[in-house]
């Protein structure tokens, strides 16, 4: 019969959250002492039937009230700042993290590695490497919750949300869905398996990846006919995609947008929404024809194009 109090600290963030937990517990203990000790003392001392000096004493009401308004407020502000600083670390994934795509679907997690490996409800990651998860949902709102890493992020349909962690020790950890998503919400769980870098490499190669994400993205790019317009030598005028990812894109209505995953995803699903400057709205919409995983593969391919220099304007 074990009585665990804290889940295992699998990352630095987990350790900082636990420090914040102990700090808040100390605050609570202090407030409880300040409230319960005098209350119990008064209950015993001034109980009906007990002789005690009950002449009403004039207490400096305003001074007391001001002190126990200002002091709690100041203490609370300190905890606010502590929590906010920690939140900034959790919410801002480092730029050089290893990117893994996660698609939440009603009652399972589909995970895609850049090298092409696909897994369901399992996430293999190397130890000591910063891992950034690009997550979206196919149907309802889920939430990717890793208790041992103390991180959680809702997975919302229609947009990408990110989450990042860096495992400290190779082991197997819990993965829960923590936003109610229907009948088997409690079965939408999985494992995060942290491996040493060498085991991770073997797992990658052994996992017969077939084609990497970028290769399957390229295959889709041709099959769906994107290359027909977007490759340089086409008769139809369509914006070149080489070197586009991450750079600002001027739009028709004189606004400027950074071409991130979300922008590319929306241009595929709702082409008429943000038309590149100087082009007309005649790209067909692919919503309903492209699944979330295929979208992520196309984006990986376009990101890969991003590293090459764009050909001079036709």
């Amino acid at each position, binding site marked *: 019969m*074990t009585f665990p*109090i804290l*889940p295992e600290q699998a990352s630095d963030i987990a350790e*900082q*959250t636990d420090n914040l*937990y102990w700090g*808040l517990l100390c605050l*609570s203990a202090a*407030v*409880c002492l300040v*409230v*319960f000790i*005098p*209350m119990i003392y*008064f*209950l015993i001392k*001034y109980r*009906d039937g007990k002789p*005690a000096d*009950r*002449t*009403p004493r004039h207490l400096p*009401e305003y001074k*007391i*009230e001001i002190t126990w*308004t200002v002091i709690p*407020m100041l203490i*609370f502000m300190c*905890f*606010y700042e*502590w*929590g*906010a*600083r*920690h*939140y900034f*670390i959790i*919410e801002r994934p480092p730029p050089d993290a290893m990117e893994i795509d996660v698609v939440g679907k009603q009652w399972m997690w589909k995970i895609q590695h850049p090298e092409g490996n696909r897994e369901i409800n399992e996430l293999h990651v190397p130890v000591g490497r910063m891992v950034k998860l690009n997550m979206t949902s196919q149907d*309802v*709102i889920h*939430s990717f919750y890793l*208790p041992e890493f*103390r991180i*959680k*992020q*809702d997975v*919302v349909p*229609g*947009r990408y*949300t990110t989450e990042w962690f860096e495992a400290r020790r190779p082991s197997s950890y*819990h993965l*829960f869905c*923590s936003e*109610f998503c*229907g*009948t088997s*919400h*409690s079965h939408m769980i999985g494992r995060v398996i942290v491996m040493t870098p060498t085991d991770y490499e073997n797992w990658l190669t052994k996992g017969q990846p077939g084609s990497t994400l970028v290769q399957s993205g390229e295959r889709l790019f041709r099959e769906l006919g994107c290359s027909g317009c977007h490759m340089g030598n086409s008769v139809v005028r369509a914006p070149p995609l080489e070197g586009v990812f991450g750079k600002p894109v001027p739009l028709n209505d004189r606004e400027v947008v950074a071409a991130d995953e979300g922008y590319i995803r929306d241009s595929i699903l*709702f082409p008429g929404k943000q038309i590149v400057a100087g082009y007309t709205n005649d790209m067909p919409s692919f*919503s309903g024809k492209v699944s979330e995983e295929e979208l992520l593969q196309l984006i990986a391919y376009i990101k890969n194009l991003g590293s090459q220099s764009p050909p001079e304007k036709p």
Partner: protein
Amino acid sequence: MNATLPQTITPEIPRPPQRLLTYLEEGGHTLGSWLLTTDHKRIGVLYLYSILFFFTIAAIAAAMMRMELITPPGDMVTSETYNKLFTIHGTTMVWFFLIPSIPSVLGNFVVPLMIGARDLAFPRLNLLSWYLFNLGGLLAVYSIAVGGVDTGWTFYEPYSSAFSNTHVVTMVAGVFVAGFSSILTGLNFIVSIHKLRAPGMTWFKLPLFLWSTYATSVILVMATPVLAMTLVLVAAERIWGVGIFDPKLGGDPVLFQHLFWFYSHPAVYIMILPGMGVVSELITCFSRKPIFGYHFVAFSSVAIALIGFFVWGHHMFVSSQSVYAGLVFSILSYLVAVPSAIKVFNWTLTLYRGRIHLDTPMLYALGFIGLFTIGGLTGLFLAALGFDVHVTDTYFVVAHFHYIMVGGMVTGFLGGLHYWWPKITGRLYPENLGRLAALIIFIGFNVTFFPQYVVGYLGMPRRYHAYAPEFQVYNVMSSAGASVLGVGYVLPLIYLIWSLKHGKKAPANPWKATGLEWQTPSPPPKHNFAQTPIVTQPPYQYSPEIEEELVHG
């Protein structure tokens, strides 16, 4: 029907004291006289029956959930049934027990008595409020009977509109109608407290229960309409298949969360503020001492009501809400905790140099202070951004809001019910049984909900009917505590009903309290006061030095 009452209050020659008929007798005994009454006291009693009915439904659902959670694999009920159970428990408790209980039962009965009025400003609207409440309740019970709803009481998009194939529209209609009942009750209280106060009763002579009821009514009136519109949008999206939260059209499901929580966080203050008002009354009466810092306690109720509308974003820290908004809502959530802290400190200091009678209402009041302090402090945990990322949507949150709602609100309601029971029924409840029940409830409650804090921090998510094996030991403790709590709640039901027949006759002022409601016989006559009382002193003019004997059942 309306006999012309004396316009100006002139001291009459004392007529021989002809026994005034009580409101139970004068209005008539027939069912029709009860169902068509516009007497605020009878409507309060009618509300008591209604919320008792809905409380039992929700309590049964809670009992079944606790039994299911004893074993890690979900083996007692299927997952669909479990999802319907926690939706029944959540929806029925929130809208059909917690929100109406103190304002509509105790508030309806006591507010006109406390301000020295003959009735509320709009008696007919008050009766309409009760009928709307029952219609909403029946719609909700009908949707439960024909198959139940499995979206949780939060009806989150897109699950509630596109992916749940249960009776969401009927339940939403029930809650929509019950929302109107809340608006009418709130409206009635606001206008009555403004317009119908007895001569001489200025705002700073109002008892603190009225301050918190006024603050609650402001929230009731200002928050409920947004819920009404949000639920209309969900129902419309289910019926026509198109909605503004639909990601396919470019809509944003997080916008639903904003609109829903704009109502639902002030709603939790609707639930706790009346409890605070009751505790202010009980602490002063049973320690025989004026409250310490009357103005600060009064204004902290209003402050909670106002700042309560600024903090809803702390429910959405991980819902892809922007980081900046997270900072704003976190700092405001810490600010809203300050008035609650002021109240707790003031209650504690009121006990200093008092003459403390540990009667049942006082036990409930002390229980409220204890449990609400723990609940409020864990609220500070959840307001810390980095910490909330780990514990939101886990059992830590479940324990937090049960400490506030069950430990705070229900304890406050039971304390108020016992305190005003002699005034409502004219009978005294059995004192020792009352104290026993209060103790059982306090112990059962802590054994039920404290382990949930620990299992919450361990990472057990909310609304799971099958969980990882290492969480089992805390869930078994919680289920054991739940059975003790169940016994604790059945006890008052038994001896209060028993006291209706066999309880001792209650004098006009058994607790020697100073409120206006104690200056009229109990149970009070139909028009509350022979002639409208004139208020000269501020409330709570107790003197702890004098030995006073309180009358017990």
